[in-house]
Structures are given as C-alpha cells and as structure tokens.
C-alpha cells in the first residue's frame, strides 16, 4: 500500500500512463517501478490482499484445523487433491499469497522512500512566501488594528506555527506531524512484516500431552509434534522442565448451564534449567508459563484412566494411565485404546469407553451426563488377542488399532459390563485380566518460542500511534499581510494542504489570536 495524500502534481499514475513508445531495458525497469509504486497499483494490490485471504476462511487450514483438512481428504480425495494443488489448505503459505504481499510491500517501499526524503527536505524548508492576494484563499479574514510583522510572527509562533517573515508578510505552517505519522505508520508495517518473518524463521512450536504425575523436559524428543523454524537449532531449546502435579477442571454442577466449564487449572512444579530449584506455577487458560520467552500454554485436557493388565502367565504386562480421546465434549465421554505388546503368550489390544459420570441409559447402554468424574466407569467394548503389528516398523497412532490389523485379531470380549474403579474383568480363555485402577487427567500443551513477538508488538504499537497522527493532524498554512500606509488594515489567509474537515473553525480562532494576541481557547477575549 502506498502512503496517503499524494499531492496531485507529482502523482506517479500520470507518469506511468504517459509511457513513451520506445523503451530500453532501463526504460522498462523504470516503467515497471513507476507502475508498481503508483497509487492505483497499490490499491489494487491492497484489495487483492484482502480478497486472497478469503479462501483461508472458507477452507480449513493446515496448522489451524488439521482434522478438518483430513476430513476433506476422507470425503472426496480427488477434490481435496485439487484444492491442495492451489494451496487452498495453506492459503497463507501459498506462493500466490506471498506474491501479493511482497509486491504490495515492495510498492510500499517504493512510495515511502522518496516521500521520506521529500519530507525530510520539507522539514528543513521554510514556509513559502505569502501569495499576493490573500482573499482568494479558502480562508480569509481582515484583521483589526495595526499589526506589525514581528507581532504577527510572535503570535503565530505562540500557536506553535513554524514561521518565516518577509517584506510586509508573515508565512506560517504547521501540521508536519501528519506526514511524519503517515510515513512512520507505513515503516512500522514493514517492521511488522519483518518481525513476523523473523519469528517464523527463528521460532518453534510444539505440542505435548502430559498426564498427571508425569513430567516434561523441553527437548525435541519430548514433543509429540515439533515444528521448528528453518533457522532453529535443536540444541538451542530453552532447557526447562516441569512435572504436572495436579489438574483441576471446575464445572457448573446445577441449573440449565450444568456441565459448562468454569475454570481449568494445572499445578506445575517448574525447574527453569537443569538443577535449578523447583518453583510452583499454576498454569491456566490465558495465563501461560513463561520461561525466558519460551511460553507454555494449556490448550486442552481429557481423562487418562489407569489400568493394570495381567497376562495369561500371571505377570503384570501393563500398568499405568491411558490417555483417552474425548468423543463427546459436553460430557467428556471418551474412548481409549490399550495396547499390550508385552503380554504373553499373545499380545493384547483393548478398546475401552470411559464415562466420567456414568448413568444407565435405555437398552442396557451407559452414558455420561456430566464432564466431571463423579462416577467414573470404564467399559471394555472390545478385547482382542493376536499380533498388534507394532514390530514391523510402521508407526501407529496410540489412539487406535489400525482397522486392517484389528481384522486379524481374535475377539475375546465384546461389550462387557462397565467397571467401577478397582473392579476387574477376567478375559475368557485364561489370557489375562483387566483392572480399572483409577482416574487421572491429561493436559495438552503448546510450547512456543517466537523471538518476533516483542518486535511485532512494538511495530504495531508504533503503527497505531503513527496512524492516529496521520489521520487527525492536518497540514495548514496561514499567511498575514500587513497593510502599508495609514489606515491600511492587516489581513490573514489560510488553507489546509491535506483533507480532513473544516479548517474554518480553527482559522477563526487563529484570527482571534492574531487580533488579540491571546490564547484562542479563551472565548471572552474577543
């Protein structure tokens, strides 16, 4: 985008249109540059920029809603393939999107640079000499009394005008802050772009799921998903660690809004660097943990019931928490998968439905009525034995047994009665037993390091302040001519160089100040 208020005389548009018939390479380059930096091109690019971001709100974006992108692929792979060819799942990383904003910012630079030098020259220049006939100006008034040049200049200076005088005239100008603000605003936008770019190159982002009682140390290996910028060194991660001691979710227990969450709070014991003493931190939504600029956010939570699985040989083959996926967000009915590759003689796979507050429903089914764990039950709805296929090197999700493997397994139990805490289910055929030992909770964390955060904040704060000056200040000029000879009266004229409402009111108060040498704010000085 180009800077506002281009004075009409040096409007580059006209120069761009009047392009000579024969152009050399330099001529073409010059024509291209002129066209690019013209206001019309800038406006078109600006609107294209807005238009180009619309698809980003129509189609789900990778990194924002990956699951929905996956759904597109599942529903119609061919359409999804085509959408992907046009980067419609990655609009904001698309080359065509980048082309628009890079051209726009190039156009902006092309406009800001010459205007900055022009403005710096203006700042040193004296206001122009008074025109001969002040009454032709948009604002004009005859002044009372016999004002001298010196006195008029003094009174205008007191109104914070920049003043120059000549033979029988005074020329005054103020409002340079408009163009200063204007230029600073656009420079700040460039700064913002640089800060965002730097953040993407030198920052990283990762997700990790932590169960109550477990810990996390900030190393690449500890992440479930790690997305570094191109310039991030795995060694440079802030070396903090913490243990999740306890997680509490509070819900409304009564009334129509029963079950709505009121608060989430995770109690952490944080060690800022290896060997440092632990400190307690209460991690909440809107209150991230900050360790030297590396931020840890609480973004999700769920249940991780604990199980003890004994195999056919009577040995404990699995003991611990199993993070479950939430199926029904309103009641936190969840589904869990327990894979027991160590079970003997055969591996075991168990599918469990976890209900935090279970009540019987119709037809012998069970359902959860409340997200808090008031009556937690775990219902085994499928237990299988056989080779889980975990040794052949193909990575598997911990949240599912792949359907093609499930088909090869031998079903043991389908839909057992729900277990309460510390109840046990014996698997038929003497292959083992499953004990529901307790309930823990898991939290999903996002850990972010973005060195561009603070620069981006400073740039946008500067942009806002500069914008206010650019929009509210007006450049205005006032001239005074004092009469010659006895009886001749002084006169004043004024104009604004840039738009923005009526100058009349202010000019009137300037006239008052010129007449009386008083503060224009004092009305009864007249």
């Amino acid at each position, binding site marked *: 985008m180009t800077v506002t208020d281009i004075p009409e005389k040096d409007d580059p548009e006209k120069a761009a249109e009047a392009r000579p018939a024969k152009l050399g390479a330099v001529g073409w380059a010059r024509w291209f540059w002129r066209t690019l930096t013209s206001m019309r091109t800038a406006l078109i690019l600006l609107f294209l920029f807005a238009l180009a971001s619309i698809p980003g709100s129509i189609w789900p974006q990778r990194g924002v809603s990956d699951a929905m992108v996956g759904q597109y692929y599942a529903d119609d792979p061919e359409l999804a393939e085509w959408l992907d060819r046009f980067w419609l799942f990655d609009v904001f990383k698309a080359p065509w999107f980048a082309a628009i904003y890079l051209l726009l910012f190039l156009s902006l630079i092309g406009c800001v640079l010459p205007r900055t030098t022009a403005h710096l020259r203006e700042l040193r220049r004296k206001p122009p000499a008074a025109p001969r006939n002040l009454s032709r100006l948009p604002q004009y008034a005859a002044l009372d009394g016999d004002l001298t040049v010196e006195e008029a200049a003094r009174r205008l200076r007191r109104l914070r005008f920049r003043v120059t005088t000549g033979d029988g005239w005074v020329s005054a100008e103020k409002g340079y802050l408009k163009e200063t603000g204007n230029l600073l605003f656009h420079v700040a936008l460039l700064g913002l772009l640089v800060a965002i770019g730097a953040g993407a190159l030198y920052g990283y982002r990762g997700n990790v799921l932590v169960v109550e009682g477990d810990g996390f140390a900030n190393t690449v290996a500890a992440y479930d998903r790690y997305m570094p910028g191109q310039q991030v060194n795995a060694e440079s991660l802030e070396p903090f660690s913490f243990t999740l001691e306890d997680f509490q979710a509070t819900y*409304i227990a009564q009334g129509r809004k029963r079950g*709505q969450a009121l608060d989430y709070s995770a109690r952490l014991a944080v060690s800022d660097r290896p060997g440092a003493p632990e400190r307690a931190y209460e991690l909440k939504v809107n209150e991230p943990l900050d360790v030297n600029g590396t931020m840890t956010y609480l973004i999700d939570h769920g249940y991780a019931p604990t199980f003890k699985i004994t195999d056919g040989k009577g040995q404990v083959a699995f003991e611990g928490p199993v993070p479950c996926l939430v199926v029904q967000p309103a009641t936190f009915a969840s589904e869990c998968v327990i894979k027991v590759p160590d079970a003997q003689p055969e591996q075991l796979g168990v599918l469990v439905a976890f209900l935090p507050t279970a009540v019987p429903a119709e037809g012998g089914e069970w359902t959860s009525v409340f997200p808090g764990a008031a009556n937690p039950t775990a219902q085994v709805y499928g237990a299988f034995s056989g080779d889980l296929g975990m040794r052949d090197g193909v990575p598997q999700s911990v949240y599912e047994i792949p359907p093609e493997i499930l088909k090869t397994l031998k079903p043991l139990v389908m839909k057992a009665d729900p277990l309460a805490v510390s109840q046990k289910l014996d698997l038929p055929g003497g292959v083992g037993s499953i004990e529901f030992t307790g309930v823990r909770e898991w939290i999903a964390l996002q*850990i972010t390091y973005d060195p561009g955060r603070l620069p981006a904040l400073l740039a946008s704060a500067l942009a806002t302040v500069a914008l206010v000056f650019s929009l509210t200040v007006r450049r205005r000029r006032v001239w005074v001519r004092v009469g010659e000879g006895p009886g001749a009266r002084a006169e004043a004229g004024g104009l604004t160089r840039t738009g923005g409402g009526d100058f009349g009111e202010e000019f009137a108060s300037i006239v008052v100040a010129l007449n009386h040498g008083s503060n224009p704010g004092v009305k009864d000085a007249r």
Partner: protein
Amino acid sequence: MPAEADPVLAALSDQLILVTVLLYVLAMLAYALDLAFGRDRAETSTAPAEPVLAAVGGTAATAAQQGEDGAAVRSGADEVPETAASGAGEDTGGTGPAPKPLPAWVTRAGTAALVLSWLGLATNLGALVTRGLAAGRWPWGNMYEFVIAICMAAMAAFLLMQLRYPVRFLGATVSAAAALGLGAAVHSLQVEAGPAMVALNSYWIAIHVSAAIAASGLFIVAGACGVIYLIRNDAAVHLPTREELERVAHRAIVIGFPIWTFAVIAGALWADKAWGRYWGWDPKEIWAFITWIVYAGYLHARATAGWKGRSATIVQLVAFGCLLFNLIGVNIFIPGLHSYAELPGQ
C-alpha cells in the same frame, strides 16, 4: 466468578432491553418526523455564532466546508441551495427562506427524538450493566450480549457526534438499525445470563472486545451515511447533501479505523496469551484483517483524488459488509477459535 447468575438482575436486564427497543422505535419515529417536516437547515446545521466568522468571506468559507481539500469542490446542482442558505444566513438573520410556519409539535420532534434516544442509550447501558452484574463478569461474553453492546455503541457514536456536528439526519437510520439489532438479539440470540466460556476469563475481554464494539459503533454510523448516500436521489431535499453524508462517514471512519486497529492488535495480544500465537489466521482474524484492509483501502482511495463520492462510498460499504460478516457471520457459519457465540439451542 459466581456459577449462578442473579435472577433478579438478569430479569431486570431483559426488561430494560425491551424498554430500550421501545425508546429507539419512538426516537426513530420522531427523527423521521423531524426529517420530513421540521428540517430547517440554516438553523440546525450551519449556525456560525462566532462574530469572527462573519468577517470571513462567505464563498470561501462554504467552499472549505463543502470540499475536503478546500481545492476540489465539485459543485453538484443539489448543492446550490445549501450554499445559498449558509452563505446568506448572516444577512437574513439565520432563517433562510421559510415557506410557511410549522406546527409546534413538528418543530419539537427533533428535540423529542434526541431526548428519547439519550434515554434509550441510558436504558441500553443499564441493561448491559445489570446483565454484567447478574453474571458477575464483563457483559459481552456471548453473541446476545455482543449485539446489544454494538447497538449501544452505534447509538452512542451517533449521539456523541451529534453533540459536535450537525448530523441529526442520521438519527432515524441509526435508531432503526439499533432497534432492529436489539429486536433480533432478543428474538433469536437470547441466552440465559451466566458465566462465560473459560477462554474469556481474562482482562483482555475488557480491552479487545470493548475496542471492537466502539469501532463497530462508529463504522455503523459511517455505514448509515453510505446507505443514505446511495439511496438518496436529487429530489430528496429533506435529506442532507451527498457531500455532507460523505464527510460524516469519513469522519466516523477516521475515528473508528485507529480504534479498530487497536482492537485487532489487542486481539493479537490476547491470542498470544490464550492460544500460544499472536496471529494464526483463525476465521475471525482473517475477517478482521480483511475489514481492516478494506477500510484502509477506503482511506487511501479517498486521500488520492478521483475516488471520492460514489466509488469511495461503495468501498466503505464493502468494508462495512466485511465488518458485519465478521461480527455475525463468522460466529454463526464458520467454526473457529472464536466460537463463543453460545447460540441458543446449542
């Protein structure tokens, strides 16, 4: 934060909303009467009380007021009576051509309209305050409350502008929009007062959402000007001139745009605290960005000569459309992180 809302205050809030709708509808009728019969422009709009202005050349002063640049005055035929009225005002004692005396009730309609809308603004504010007290939090935690707050902001923006500038002609449109907005909120968005979603428990709601509401109020005033601009035909002598409409719209946007910029930045700051990134191209962020860009485009288009009048007004209305889509459409149609609408029946 209490889990239970205070039922008495919540009921009071609901009743105050109904009173507000009633007041806005009455105000709209009074503004319409004022517009149709009571409009005496030399008296209401340009009354240069300052004796200094009398010394100022008549044509020059009007030229500066009619054209933003003081240079580019495109005198349309519809503008001529205006110029005559304000220019000649000094000589004829500020009355201008008065065809026939108006009944007293008509001349009072404008005053009555202002009184009604100030009262409506007070009850609108009262409804929000009682709602907030009932729920024990900032009263813009869901779509219902947000729409009520925006209606209040639009009315407040208009009434405050009206104190300084002669923009009473906007009253009918703004109060109609506010009454319709409140009616729609009561009819299809109302939810029981209660705690907001956990993600909204932050002081940023006071900063980010309030700024968005204030900017929206100003943009609604500008949008009202734009709509009148487009539907106005040259025969509609009771309506303000196109130049006047454009000037008011521009003024509202010049104030609203920095506030909107601030709202977006405050939103980014909040996102940085809540979601682990300051900008993530969430649908709400995308449309806030688009709105910002199009309003920025409007300001540029106006600042560079040639894009004034109709085309600038259309750009402004496109931006306003983006704003409305962002405020309402995104909450309802597009799933995203900003899904705080808490629509009834969900």
